[in-house]
């Protein structure tokens, strides 16, 4: 039996190879989509915890506390503390550019994170207090290498450091923006004041012993005299990291579901591509006396062999390509875990779909005679004709409900997404045949032949379904990329004229800033994160704590401006939130929400609704005084708006306050640093979109070639009948072109609807956005795929395979 199965496989090696490849690629696609969210979480987690490493608790100074602290005996001896690691981080200027310099006490530099050293010796950190480790990126940026001497300036203090090692972008250096230099507290303290000392720090990292109640320890530390005015919190805020990862990966995860389904569909269609041949072969086996069991065993063995091979190669491809992409786009140094269960699921889905779909022709052929089966094939076309209008009607209904019933929008959007793809899958074959009929009436024999083939031969319907659905999925992936990038970066344009001055004490006088040339307006602001909750949700929000916040960013007023502005300027205890909260959770003016800042929770009333794409709507506007009164948190930033030359104003501010040790940076630069990890995720999504599109195209090509392989006799017959090779090639080009054109037109149209559904579906992830659609992105993707598909006959030199043989 196995021999026969292997003979069948080897008799058509090209088809077998193409089938294996298609299964492998589908498995890889499925794995990539299943693993995407996890990888993004892992990356965000690594970047968010790069500073705190393996610690559990961080004690940090803030604008209302002293700027320095030290490890006290009560902390060291506190119950449940495994180790305590003080760290001093300062911002200094190197060649006029801000760098972070972070110091540890002797022997403690790798207590929280390990260095991944490329050159030099990190142990030199313990030899001399002026040695530092820098990242490879910093080395390149400043033209430094091991042994180099650098001069750092902070206010009137200057200190010299020596590069003892260059490290890879991992550990502490994952957050290498602005560039991070790691050294010793003793050396760095000289930049702090005119003293050189160990132990002084502005952050203390605490590692709790196994089994310790972390929250209890946080509370105990907060109550210690030395740290009562400081921020004591868990090192890695799991909730925030999860939210961040979810919001970044949500569009792709949704589009990934389509990729998942497409992968299964491709495998099914692929195995059904040679249905006719299989039925014919089954007839032959039946004629020579093979039992049904034997026939089934032969075909199951054949398809299982191909599926197993495809799944195994797919697993290898998945791990290699996916991890390769992660390393290339996110970080080469993070050891991304490969989830065994996801790999098994992907492989099983590929294997079961392949074997399952290969059983269909067998079951069908067992039902009746060959003649009856031929008749059934015709019925299948009719089935599509019946299914298409049903799916289309359901899609219309679903979309109408989605767009009209706001409470059902999110849930129905997923149904709409699925139904739209089903409509596309069933409608494209019908549309192809429908369009081929009138076109076939033209005079050109090549076109007429092509159109006749399209109408008669079921494989073209499958090509159209695969290409059309694949093209739509690819468009959706690119839209997800464009959307994610837009969501997280578009609002930055509003900040191009703004400068942040941080490291200020809460008592700073902002009028001094307005005397600087180029400065238009300056206001104190609390710019930090807090948790906002009611019974339905709990979200990490960015707080803009300033009565002048509405002058800084151009908000749209949902609640009338006349109501919002006085409340804010009069320091009334209100918070103002984005309309997203209303759309997602029904939050409205007058509602009471619980806001938590630095571990302190207070109930506050919603004073009104605003609208802006800022932080994807995850922002709260409130008065600085309200924050100070309610949470004892003072302003830590002065936001300065500038007219004209921003760089000039930044320089002027730095010069004017040179003796104040303010940290002056334009907002776009600050966000460039802040967005570094997010940008890496954008790169990942983009690369994944490109790779999955290439995968989709590869399986489409493989399916086409497999299907075309079964029509060899038909082409020979045409050549024998006198058709020239040139005309046959033209005919095939037309077949491809028509499929490509039709797929593009329908996919392009469907992509707008699908993007709207995708945006609605994001509400399930707690994300609210207005409709955004980049038509040119979808057009470029569609045209590229369609164009490539149309040119396949020429690119793969179909003409070379035209040989006149007796059929």
């Amino acid at each position, binding site marked *: 039996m196995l021999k026969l199965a292997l003979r069948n496989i080897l008799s058509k090696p090209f088809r077998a190879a193409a089938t294996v490849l298609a299964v492998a690629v589908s498995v890889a696609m499925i794995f990539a989509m299943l693993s995407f969210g996890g990888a993004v979480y892992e990356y965000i987690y690594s970047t968010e915890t790069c500073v705190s490493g393996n610690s559990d608790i961080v004690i940090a100074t803030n604008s209302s506390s*002293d700027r320095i602290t*030290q490890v006290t005996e009560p902390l060291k001896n506190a119950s449940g503390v495994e180790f305590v690691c003080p760290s001093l981080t300062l911002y200094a200027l190197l060649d006029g550019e801000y760098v972070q310099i972070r110091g540890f006490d002797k022997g403690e530099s790798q207590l929280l994170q390990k260095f991944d050293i490329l050159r030099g010796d990190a142990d030199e950190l313990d030899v001399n207090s002026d040695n530092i480790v820098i990242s490879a990126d910093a080395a390149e940026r400043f033209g430094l290498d091991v*042994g180099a001497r650098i001069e750092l300036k902070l206010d009137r203090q200057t200190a010299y450091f020596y590069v003892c090692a260059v490290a890879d972008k991992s550990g502490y250096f994952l957050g290498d923006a602005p560039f991070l230099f790691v050294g010793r507290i003793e050396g760095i303290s000289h930049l702090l*004041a005119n003293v050189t000392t160990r132990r002084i720090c502005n952050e203390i990292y605490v590692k709790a012993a196994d089994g310790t109640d972390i929250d209890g320890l946080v509370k105990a530390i907060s109550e210690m005299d030395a740290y009562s005015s400081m921020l004591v919190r868990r090192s890695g805020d799991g909730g925030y990291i999860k939210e961040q990862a979810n919001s970044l990966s949500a569009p792709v995860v949704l589009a990934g579901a389509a990729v998942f389904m497409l992968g299964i569909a491709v495998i099914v269609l692929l195995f059904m591509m040679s249905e006719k041949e299989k039925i014919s072969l089954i007839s032959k086996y039946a004629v020579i006396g093979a039992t049904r069991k034997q026939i089934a065993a032969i075909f199951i063995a054949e398809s299982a062999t191909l599926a197993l091979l495809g799944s195994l190669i797919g697993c290898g491809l998945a791990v290699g390509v996916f991890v390769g992409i992660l390393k290339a786009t996110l970080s080469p140094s993070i050891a991304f875990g490969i989830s065994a269960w996801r790999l098994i699921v992907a492989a099983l889905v590929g294997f079961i779909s392949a074997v399952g779909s290969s059983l269909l022709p067998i079951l069908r052929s067992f039902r009746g005679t060959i003649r009856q089966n031929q008749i059934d094939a015709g019925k299948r076309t009719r089935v599509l004709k019946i299914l298409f209008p049903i799916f289309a009607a359901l899609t219309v209904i679903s979309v109408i409900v989605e767009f009209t019933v706001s409470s059902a929008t999110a849930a129905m959007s997923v149904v709409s997404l699925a139904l739209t793809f089903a409509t596309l899958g069933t409608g494209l074959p019908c549309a192809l045949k429908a369009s081929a009929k009138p076109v076939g009436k033209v005079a050109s024999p090549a076109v007429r032949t092509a159109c006749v083939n399209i109408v008669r031969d079921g494989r073209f319907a499958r090509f159209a379904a695969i290409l059309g659905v694949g093209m739509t999925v690819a468009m959706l992936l690119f839209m997800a990329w464009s959307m994610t990038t837009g969501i997280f970066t578009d609002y930055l344009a509003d900040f191009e004229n703004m400068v942040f001055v941080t490291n200020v004490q809460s008592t700073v006088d902002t009028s001094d800033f307005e005397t600087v040339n180029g400065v238009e307006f300056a206001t104190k602001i609390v710019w930090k994160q807090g948790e906002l909750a009611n019974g339905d949700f709990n979200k990490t929000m960015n707080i803009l704590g300033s009565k002048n916040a509405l002058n800084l960013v151009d908000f749209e007023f949902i609640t009338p401006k006349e109501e919002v502005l006085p409340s804010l300027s009069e320091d009334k205890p209100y918070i103002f939130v984005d309309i997203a909260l209303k759309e997602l959770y029904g939050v409205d003016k007058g509602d009471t929400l619980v806001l938590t800042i630095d571990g302190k929770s207070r109930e506050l009333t919603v004073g009104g609704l605003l609208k802006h794409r800022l932080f994807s709507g995850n922002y709260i506007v409130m008065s600085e005084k309200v924050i100070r009164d309610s949470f004892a948190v003072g302003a830590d930033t002065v936001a300065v708006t500038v007219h004209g030359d921003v760089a000039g104003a930044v320089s002027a501010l730095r010069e004017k306050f040179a003796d104040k040790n303010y940290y002056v940076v334009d907002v776009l630069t600050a966000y460039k640093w802040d967005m570094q990890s997010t940008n890496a995720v954008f790169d990942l999504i983009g690369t994944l979109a490109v790779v999955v599109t290439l995968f989709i195209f590869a399986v489409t090509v493989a399916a086409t070639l497999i299907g075309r392989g079964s029509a060899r006799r038909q082409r020979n017959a045409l050549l024998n009948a006198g058709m020239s090779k040139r005309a046959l090639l033209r005919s095939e080009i037309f077949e491809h072109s028509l499929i490509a054109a039709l797929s593009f037109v329908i996919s392009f149209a469907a992509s707008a609807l699908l993007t709207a559904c995708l945006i609605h579906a994001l509400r399930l992830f707690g994300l609210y956005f207005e409709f955004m659609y980049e038509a040119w992105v979808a057009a470029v993707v569609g045209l590229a795929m369609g164009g490539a598909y149309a040119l396949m006959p020429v690119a793969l030199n179909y003409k070379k395979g035209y040989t006149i043989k007796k059929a």
Partner: protein
Amino acid sequence: MKSAFQKIASALLAVLVVVACAGALFACHKKPSAAERDRQERVQSVATVKHAFLNGIKSEWQGSFENGQIAALDDAGEYVVTAGWTQLVCDTLLESDLQTAKLKALATAMSSEDGQSLIKNFSANAELLITLVRQVGFTPTDISNLVYELMYALVDKGGSTIDAMIARMNEIRGIAGIGVKPYSNLGIYIGNLNSAKSTYIPSASEREQMLTAFTNAKQPLNELTAFAYNTSVTGISDNMLDALFGGGGALENITDGEIATLVDTLLLNIADLKDALDAPSLAKLNLALDLIIKKFDDDTINSALYSQIVRYAKYAYSIVDVIPVICDIVTAAGNVVKSDGFVADMREIADISESLNETSNGINESIITAKILLEVMNTYTQSELKGIISAAGDRSANDFQKSVPLFALDIALNIKSVLYDFDEDTGLLAAHPDIIDNESLGDILSTVLFLNPYLEKLKQRYFDYTVGKAELSDLLFIANLCSFESYDIRNPYSVQETALWYEYYMTEGLRKVNLVVAECMAKATADINEFISEFYEDGGEIRNSLLTVANWQFVKVSLSEQEAKPYTDELIKSALPGIVALLGFVTGE
């Protein structure tokens, strides 16, 4: 015709020749490795340091003179000796752990205008060496390692360095046509080194003993050097107020809490030093310092840097035993700084000190000192303090150098007697004449104010005299300043018998000084302990005055002498003016 074999052999030979040539060329053009390049840079930097140093001393001197060029110098001998010692220092720098870039920076700094002017008058500006290396960015670790390595090299290679210098000078003297002046100068230095050789070059066993002592004392020596450099760099010993309030940096507008944190961490560093200098470590350190001083304290090492290091070693030697006590006292002082309101007061004083006259600033300093003194008294019981003083007295009884800290303290406590109760007829009037007589107080004063500082100068001047750079009258003048007569030392030799005259002071003279010192030390410790009793005595005059001063408000206006009289009258009753002066002396203000 050539056979095929010959043809093949010729071709092979040709190929081999080409390959060999290519290999040789490749080898010639081989790029140096990173380590080789680093070594080259170090050698070059060290050569620059040597040149900068020699050229700084005399502009006509170069770092790498050939013998022929040296023969043309009038001061050829001096050049060879200076260059020889400089080479030893440079070799140590070359082999040290100093980063190459730091060596380069040092070379640049020494070649700069500031560096050159410092070197030109090094003996007068030796303190500026700290400023120079600070500007270059030397860390306490660098300095402590270098001091250790330089001292080690002096013991280990000092003898061979002297031999090499003598050999070179002899070689130069043998150059045909050498001038009279260079010839004679070389002769002087050869003679000088030859005579020093017997005492300076240690025997094999001595060398072994010294190197072992050094190795054993490395850790405490490094701790002490690092701490000393660190405090000099941080400026705490120069001006704590400026260090905390005026330095700029990330703690501009420093808060009271931040000052408390800073002071705390600095005090922890002091506690670390105290922990590092436990009794066994102190014994090792004493031994090593003693060996250095005994062997090299005669200024025969004509190296400004080495002389300076020996001077620092002597300073360290004199205080090393009391460092743990000083650490405790500084820690107690730190507790005052952290106490409520004190920082605010300090901040206020820092703000107004520039606008106040000396009298008002002096009163404010006395108030601070009174508060610190009371804190120290709260930290220690009377008997503990007395025990510390007695133990320190026992340790330093037989060595005038070590006696200086306690003698200085006794003078400070007797300040009232020294400044106000001086009687032209009877001399000094000690506060406790039953414990210490006026004569002994005078000896103590001579030791601290005259013998200790001027003996160093006498040694330097004698060396200058031997190389023709000083006159006999200079020698006599300095010897008089040492006030040997006050110890009843009568030199039997005249100054014309210079070597014997000098030798007498250095041996017999110092023996007699130490005898007097031993006698005075017992009295001084008893005197200090009596003062301690008075400090603790409830209702006693000193304690009452101390409490009164500590409770004064800071003076915020410049007071005239008349206006300040009530203050000064009260201060005179306490021992504070002396202690303030002593603190000022110790901290270099």
